């Protein structure tokens, strides 16, 4: 076992993916010589060379499109879009080409494309560099969305993403880069579509990903002190979504609190709650709760951004409100 950061786990996953299969190549802005804007790819071009690790111009449409075309011809591209917010400039390629191409051609092509992007707030990057942009892609059938919250999941989901025959967008949270965990020499793949029960409990089901998973865990610790046993579930991928694990938990706890760092409208949390409401109506003893930031862009000032993001206190309060209902 080696203590590994989230950032290091991503690096290792990319290295191992490249080592495992010559059909995998890796491209993006400054991923090569510079080792990545977030240093997630340090040393990778040195090891695999410029044939397989390519620095691109600032041209996100060209990056994603190249990945699509190469995948159609049988390669397994891994592309980096630096900040997740920049999916905006490649949105057509992702939404209208990557997601639909297989369907539109009646299954003639497969598109084993992985795109990894740094998402999330809390670090003072302002409105255009802090978004949980995975929520922009939920209404686009054809994309798988991975949202790892730990080093093990970052490694395991990245490997699974690159080996998956369908397009996967892999969002890494900027606030977690330095989170550490002991990992074995060959960490396991994490199946896309399998949630993790982070902590067992029978009082209330809390669902959260990435930074919010860690804050929910903090909340769960605090609540444990009060004798409230939270069951914390991290879905780990938003598409495919492991509804069964959450539903089973809700069947037991009869309480659901979903926490996310994006506003409610069109979010994965709202989607989950609407489905629980439809399919587990009788199992709920209290209204399902969604803990979210307000309907505003991400503010820059420290005090405002801290108020914008849900914190452990707000999460704990929502849990207590649910139980007090």
């Amino acid at each position, binding site marked *: 076992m080696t203590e590994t950061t989230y950032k290091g786990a991503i690096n290792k996953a990319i290295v191992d993916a490249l080592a495992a299969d010559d059909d995998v190549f890796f491209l993006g802005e400054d991923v090569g010589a510079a080792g990545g804007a977030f240093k997630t790819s340090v040393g990778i071009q040195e090891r695999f060379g410029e044939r397989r690790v*390519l620095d691109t*111009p600032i041209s996100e449409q060209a990056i994603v499109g190249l990945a*699509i*075309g190469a995948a159609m011809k049988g390669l397994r591209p891994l592309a980096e879009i630096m900040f997740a917010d920049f999916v905006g400039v490649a949105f057509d390629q992702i939404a209208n080409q990557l997601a639909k191409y*297989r*369907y*539109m051609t009646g*299954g*003639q092509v497969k598109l084993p494309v992985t795109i990894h992007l740094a998402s999330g707030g809390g670090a003072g990057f302002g409105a255009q560099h802090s978004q949980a942009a995975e929520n922009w892609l939920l209404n686009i059938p054809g994309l798988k969305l991975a949202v790892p919250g730990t080093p093990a999941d970052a490694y395991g989901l990245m490997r699974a993403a690159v080996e998956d025959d*369908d397009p996967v967008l892999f969002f890494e949270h900027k606030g977690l880069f330095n989170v550490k965990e002991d990992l074995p020499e060959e960490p396991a793949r994490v199946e896309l579509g399998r949630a993790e029960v982070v902590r067992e409990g029978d009082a209330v089901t809390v669902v959260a990903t990435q930074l919010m998973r860690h804050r929910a865990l903090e909340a769960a610790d605090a609540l444990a002190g009060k004798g409230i046993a939270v069951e914390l579930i991290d879905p780990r991928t938003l598409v495919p979504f492991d509804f069964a694990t959450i539903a089973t938990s809700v069947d037991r706890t009869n309480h659901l609190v979903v926490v996310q760092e994006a506003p409610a409208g069109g979010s994965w949390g709202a989607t989950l709650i609407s489905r629980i409401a439809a399919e587990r109506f009788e199992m709920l003893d209290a209204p399902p709760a969604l803990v979210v930031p307000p309907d505003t862009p991400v503010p820059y000032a420290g005090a405002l951004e801290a108020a914008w993001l849900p914190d452990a206190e707000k999460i704990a309060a929502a849990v207590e409100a649910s139980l007090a209902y």
Partner: protein
Amino acid sequence: MNERTRPAKLSAEERAEQLELLRAMHEIRFFEHECGRLFARGEVRGTTHLCEGQEAVSVGACRALREGDSMTCTYRGHGATLAMGAPLDESFGEVFGRAPGLCGGKGGSMHLTDLRVGALGSHAIVGAHLPIANGAAFEARYRGTGAVHACFFGDGSTNIGAFHESLNLASIWKLPVVFVCENNLYGEYSPLATTTPIERLADRAAAYGMPGERIDGNRVLEVREAVAAAVERARAGEGPTLIEAMTYRQKGHSRTDPAKYRPEGELEEWLARDPILLHGKWLAEAGVEQAEIDAAEAAAREAVGEALERALAWPEPEPAALLEDVWVAS
């Protein structure tokens, strides 16, 4: 007409080859006539964009490719897809939304795709396939297959961001791709001069350090020669070329456009330079008998007729198909 494409005494083999180009253009023309006719009859859904008048670009460029090469094009993609060798019946089937259609009926007229012949797709978002074309070319270089990719798009498409990003990347990475701009003078209903501050689109190549050439897109041999040279360059690892093929969209933009915005006489001028007409004349001047020329046309007409009959008899997709082909693995 340049030196290489002037008619001369043809060998039997050459004659066959030249007649085949004519036949291929006729095939597209007849195919599209049926699409137009069946659109009016309600067999074609939504819309369809005919390339009538532009067949020499499709045929000339695609016949400069070899097996293993590939091609992407636009919603106006019947010509290029057929020129790559997609079967007529399955192409019709796709346009009519039938189960045995190229894409199982899920794509439609704007999305004809046939991977078996290297037709990687017809794209309906302007410019969106140029980045994808780079990817196909990248694979060839990555694996050292020697394959080349040809990417078709219109004059109006040269104003969209994806065009710029793609030509830049293709050039800096010296990807084996040939960008074939079909300048048919209009983007939808807008004449080029109203949307584009320069007249020669081939000149845009200079912004990418790439050769750019303007050619007569209504002369199938000129197209084939120019594309062949670009393909050779690409295969040799020297990178991409931008070819601007001057041509004309004889019909409206799509089936609902009567094209009233054309200046008087323009259509007539271009009809007089119809690519099928021009190549027919070339053949005649090269001493090919009229009977052979007519036979090429008849062969195309017959093939299209038979394919149409087959396709019209095909069933629509089964309901179960609705949920298929989203994922490979799930």
